């Protein structure tokens, strides 16, 4: 049960953090293709364009791994009180800069998490 919870958490946290990272340029590192060099966090362009996509994915992956690890170790009775609030919080549509298709994928992931949690609760009864 905890592995399914942590897996669902990874997917949702990854999507949420990725969108936030893109919108606010929270890159874990920057790659300068003209120089073939990496720089920490989000650096301005140096002698050519800067690439942040690798850094955004790394940031989302890192935070998602931490989140799924937390979800794995949180006790079930605490998790059942926490998760519904997290789902409500995540369903806000602040990220209006992205187009409808991305919002739909994001909403589908949230819905998947709700369905997963319901299935787990039913199996536990």
């Amino acid at each position, binding site marked *: 049960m905890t592995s*399914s919870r942590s*897996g*669902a958490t*990874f*997917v949702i946290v*990854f*999507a949420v953090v*990725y969108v936030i990272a*893109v919108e606010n340029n929270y890159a874990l590192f920057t*790659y300068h*293709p*003209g120089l073939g060099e990496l720089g920490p966090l989000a650096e301005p362009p140096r002698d*050519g*364009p800067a*690439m942040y*996509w*690798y850094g*955004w*994915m790394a940031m*989302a*992956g890192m935070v*998602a791994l931490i989140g799924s690890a937390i979800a794995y170790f949180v006790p079930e009775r605490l998790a059942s009180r926490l998760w519904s609030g997290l789902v409500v919080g995540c369903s806000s549509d602040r990220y209006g800069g*992205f*187009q409808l*298709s*991305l919002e739909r*994928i994001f909403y*589908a*992931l949230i*819905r*998947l998490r709700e*369905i*997963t949690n319901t*299935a787990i609760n*039913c199996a536990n009864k």
Partner: protein
Amino acid sequence: MITLLLIIHGLVAVALLGAVTHQAIGVLLPARRAADSFVGRMRAVSTPAYVTAVVVLYLATAVLGGWIYPEYRLGVRVVLEQLDLWKANGSFELKEHFAALGLGMLPAYWFFWRQPLASSYSRERTVITATLAFIVWWSFLVGHVLNNIRGFGS
């Protein structure tokens, strides 16, 4: 070398396209009776059989794409911006984001398709497979069109 990597990226993507499309058709339009036509046989495929292939091919395509991405950034995107081809540029940016989100969805995809298949996860399998199929189709078509507009080394 970069052109060779692009070709391999395209070939792996074609294999991924085939696998995920077969699986998506199998979950969205499952066969109700014995298959007696080309379309019927496509609908009757064993959908769980494609899971490992989809995961491996998606990862391989993503790694190859990430490898050649700097060449795109320097040699293609700059030209798109200079020519004011913003729709092409924007559609490739969407490809990047879709591909990243698809990568993040792979653990859930693998989980919901784990054997033995849980009947309670039937809807989740359908949604996640259809979503991945959309992402793969978008990425393939956009990559192809942009390569037509401005290929590597041109």
